[in-house]
C-alpha cells in the first residue's frame, strides 16, 4: 500500500521537500512509516525520535495504524496564536 507523508516548517527544511509518497507493507503503523522515511531520505534523520503526528488531518500517535491512501503529517512544535 502507499502513504503520503507531509512535512512542514523545520521538518520540510530538513528533508528538502514538503511531501513524499512512500510504499508501506500492510499493518504498518505511523512508527513504521517514519522508520521507512528515515531510511529513504537522509535529511529525515534530523526529525526527533517521537515527533507529533497527524493521520488524515487528526492528531494521532506513533502506534496509530496506517491504511492505504492515508495522509500522514509530521508536525514540528506548533507556534500558532
Amino acid at each position, binding site marked *: 500500500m502507499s502513504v503520503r507523508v507531509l512535512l*512542514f516548517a523545520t521538518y520540510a527544511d530538513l528533508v528538502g521537500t514538503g511531501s513524499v509518497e512512500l510504499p508501506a507493507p500492510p499493518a504498518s503503523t505511523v512508527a513504521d512509516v517514519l522508520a521507512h522515511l528515515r531510511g529513504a531520505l537522509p535529511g529525515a534523520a534530523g526529525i526527533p525520535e517521537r515527533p507529533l503526528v497527524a493521520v488524515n488531518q487528526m492528531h494521532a500517535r*506513533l502506534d496509530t*495504524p496506517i491504511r492505504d491512501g492515508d495522509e500522514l503529517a509530521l*508536525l514540528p512544535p*506548533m507556534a*500558532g*496564536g
Partner: protein
Amino acid sequence: MPSYLTRAPIDPTALVAAVSGAELGGVATFLGVVRNHQDGQPVLRLEYSAYEAMAEAESARIVAEAVERWPVRVALRHRLGELAIGEVAVAIAVGSAHRAPAFEACRYVIEEVKRRVPIWKKEFFADGSVRWVDPTAGREATRPVAPIGREV
C-alpha cells in the same frame, strides 16, 4: 463551513459582531499580537504558515468543543502569511448571556489553538537571521498532543 484561516488583516470588530446578539450580555475576546521581540532579540516581522486543511479542521473541532461545553457563540480567526509588528495574528470572540462562560470558553479556545492547531511561525530578526519558533525549546522532548486514536 467558515474559514478559520485568513491571509487578510483580521478585523476584531467583525468577530465581536458575529458573536453578539440581542439576547447576549457579554463578549470576551482575545487578540494575539505580533511582538517586537523574542527572547530579547528584536523581531522585524513574522511569517505564519500552516498545514491548512488540518488547521481548518482542528479549529472547527475546538470551536465545536467550546460550544458544546459552554452556552456560547464563538468566532475564531488565525492569520497566515507575513505579519508586521503590532498586527493581529489570532482573534477569538466569545458571546454569552453571562460573563463567566464567555471568559472560560475564550481562554479554552486560545489554549487549545496554541496546543493543537498546526501553524508555524518564522521570525525574521534585525540582524538578518531567520528562525522557526519552537515554543517547546528548553522543555523536555515533544510529547503527543492528545492521545487521540482513530477507529480501526
